C-alpha cells in the first residue's frame, strides 16, 4: 500500500500553492445599497506558507476566502494561484476545484456518510480512484490522523474535534494546493482547541500545504502561523503583516516563551484598534 507522504507527491512541496491577491475589492449590493466589504486588499502568500488572517468580526475575511474558493465573485482586482488566474477582470467568479479546499466554520462533513466515505468522496467523484480504492486510502489517512477506529462512524456520532480533524483529512486526501480554513476552531473550548492545534501542526509538518487560516484569536494565529496578516475593519484591507520566526516543529512550550509574548504585544495594538472601530461601527456581519 502506497503511503501518502509529502515526498511522493507530484512536484516538490514548496513549488506549489503560491497565492497572490492583488488589489481585490468586493462591493455587495443588497437592496440597492452598495456596501464595500473588501477595499483594495493585496497579499502575497508563499508556497507552503501558513498564513493567518486576523481581523475583527464581519470585516470581510470570509468574503476573501469565498472569492478564492469560488463561492463569491470579486468586483475589482485579481487572484492568482501559482500564476494561474483564478478570478480577475472579465472573470469575476473563480471556478470551484479540488486544488483549493475549504474547511468550514460549522463543519460540513456530510452527515449521511461515514467518516471514511466522507474522506473518500473527493477522489471518488473526481474519478481519481475507484470507490473501493478511495475507501482504502481514506482509512489509511484516517488512521494516520489518529482516527483509525472511527472510519465507520457517522459524523453525528463523534465529537466536534474528531469531526473537524476528519474534515481536514477529507481536504488533504485531494492533495490540494491551498487549504482554506474559516475559523474552524471557533466554537471549541480551550483544551480541545489546544489538541486541534497540535494535530494541525503535525499534519502541516507532514504535507507542507499552503494554509489560509481565518481566525480572530491572536494567540492561535501566532502559534500556528508563519505570517499573521492583520486586516482593518470593513471595508477590509491589509493593516499589518507580522512575521513569526518561531522555528518549527512547534509545541505548546512556545506559548510561554519571551519571543511569543513579544509577538503578541507587537500585533495586539493593531488588532485592538480595529476591533474598537468595528465595535463602534456596530453593524451586522456580512455573509
Amino acid at each position, binding site marked *: 500500500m502506497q503511503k501518502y507522504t509529502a515526498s511522493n507527491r507530484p512536484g516538490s512541496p514548496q513549488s506549489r500553492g503560491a497565492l497572490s491577491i492583488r488589489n481585490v475589492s468586493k462591493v455587495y449590493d443588497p437592496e440597492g445599497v452598495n456596501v464595500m466589504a473588501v477595499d483594495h486588499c493585496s497579499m502575497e502568500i508563499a508556497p507552503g506558507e501558513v498564513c493567518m488572517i486576523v481581523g475583527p468580526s464581519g470585516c470581510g475575511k470570509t468574503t476573501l476566502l469565498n472569492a478564492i*474558493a469560488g463561492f463569491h465573485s470579486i468586483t475589482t482586482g485579481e487572484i492568482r494561484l501559482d500564476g494561474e488566474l483564478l478570478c480577475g477582470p472579465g472573470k469575476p467568479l473563480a471556478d470551484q476545484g479540488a486544488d483549493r*479546499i475549504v474547511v468550514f466554520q460549522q463543519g460540513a462533513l456530510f452527515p449521511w456518510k461515514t467518516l471514511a466515505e466522507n474522506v473518500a468522496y473527493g477522489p471518488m467523484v473526481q474519478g481519481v480512484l475507484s470507490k473501493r480504492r478511495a475507501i482504502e486510502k481514506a482509512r489509511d489517512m484516517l488512521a494516520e490522523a489518529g482516527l483509525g477506529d472511527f472510519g465507520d462512524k457517522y459524523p453525528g456520532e463523534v465529537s466536534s474535534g474528531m469531526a473537524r480533524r476528519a474534515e481536514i483529512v477529507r481536504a488533504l486526501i485531494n492533495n490540494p494546493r491551498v487549504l482554506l480554513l474559516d475559523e474552524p476552531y471557533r466554537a471549541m473550548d480551550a483544551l480541545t482547541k489546544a489538541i486541534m492545534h497540535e494535530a494541525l501542526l503535525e499534519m502541516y509538518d507532514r504535507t507542507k500545504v499552503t494554509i489560509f487560516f481565518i481566525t480572530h484569536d491572536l494567540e492561535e494565529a501566532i502559534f500556528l502561523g508563519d505570517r499573521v496578516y492583520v486586516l482593518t475593519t470593513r471595508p477590509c484591507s491589509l493593516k499589518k503583516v507580522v512575521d513569526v520566526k518561531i522555528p518549527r516543529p512547534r509545541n505548546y512550550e512556545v506559548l510561554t516563551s519571551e519571543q511569543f509574548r513579544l509577538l503578541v504585544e507587537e500585533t495586539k495594538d493593531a488588532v485592538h484598534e480595529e476591533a474598537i472601530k468595528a465595535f463602534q461601527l456596530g453593524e451586522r456581519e456580512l455573509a
Partner: protein
Amino acid sequence: MDQVVTPVELPSVIKPSPTGLQRTWYLLKKSVRSPSPYLMAAGLFLWVLVYWLLCEALQLPRFVKIPGPVTIFSEWFSPNPQQGISIFTPEYYHHIYVSCRRIFIAFCIATSIGVPLGLFMGWSRTFREYSFPILETLRPIPILAWVPLAILMFSGYETPVIFLATLASLFVTTLNTMLGVQSIDEAYFRAAGCLGSSRWDVFRHVVVPGALPFVFTGLQISIGVAWFSLVAAEMVSGDFGLGYLILSSYVNGVTVPMVIGMLTLGLVGWITSAMVRFVGNRLMQWHARALALQGR
C-alpha cells in the same frame, strides 16, 4: 445521626453494547421496567371503559343507537356474525385486500412521481418557477371536489378511486421533498463543489440523501392522506373496500360492521405508516443513530 449509605456495585468490566436479538431483548426488558407499557394499557382500558359506560352500561340517550364495545368485539370475533362481518368471513378480508391494493398502487405512483418531482423542484430554481404556481393552485382543492371529475375522466370502479388517492398523496410527497431539498445547509453544496463534484454528483450525494429525512416524513403523512382520500372515494364510487363497507353498512342500517370497518381502517392505516417509518430508519442509519444518541 448516622447515615447509612448503601454501596452501589459497579460492574467490573464495561461490556460492549449488545446487537441484534440481544439488543431487542434488552430493550424489551428495559421497557417492561419503565412505566410506559403500563400507562398505555391503563389508557386503553380507560377509553374502552368510557365507551362501554356510555353505550352499554348507562345507555345515554344519544348513544343508544351506537354499538358498544361488548357487541362489537363479540361480533368481530364470532364465527357466525349476525350482521355479516367478522374475522371468520372471507368478505371481511376481501374488503381489506381491495383497499390495501388500491393504497399500494396509489402510494407507489404518488411516490415515484412525487419524490423526483420534488427533488427537481428543490434543486433547480428554473424548474421550481415553472411548476410551483400550478402545484400551489391545485393543492388546496379538496379531494372530494375532484370526485366528479375523476368519475368523468376514468371508467369503472377502480381507476377513479386510485386516481383520487394518488392525487392526495402526490401533493404531500412533492411538497415535503421540495422543502427537504431547500432545508439542506448551503455549506454541504459548497463542500461538494470544492471537492470536485459534477452537478450530477451533487444531486446524487447531497440533494438526495440530504432531503431523505423530509421525504420520509412526507411519505408517512402521504400514506395517511392516501387512506383518507381512498375512503372518501370508495364512499362515492366503489364496489368493495373498507370505505365502501362503512358506508354501505350505514345505508343498510347495520351499525356493527360499520364500526368494525372503522376500527380495521385505523389498525391497517397504523401498520402501513409503521412500515414506511421502518423503511425510512433502515435507509437513514445516520439519522436514526443521531436521534438515538439524543435519547429519542
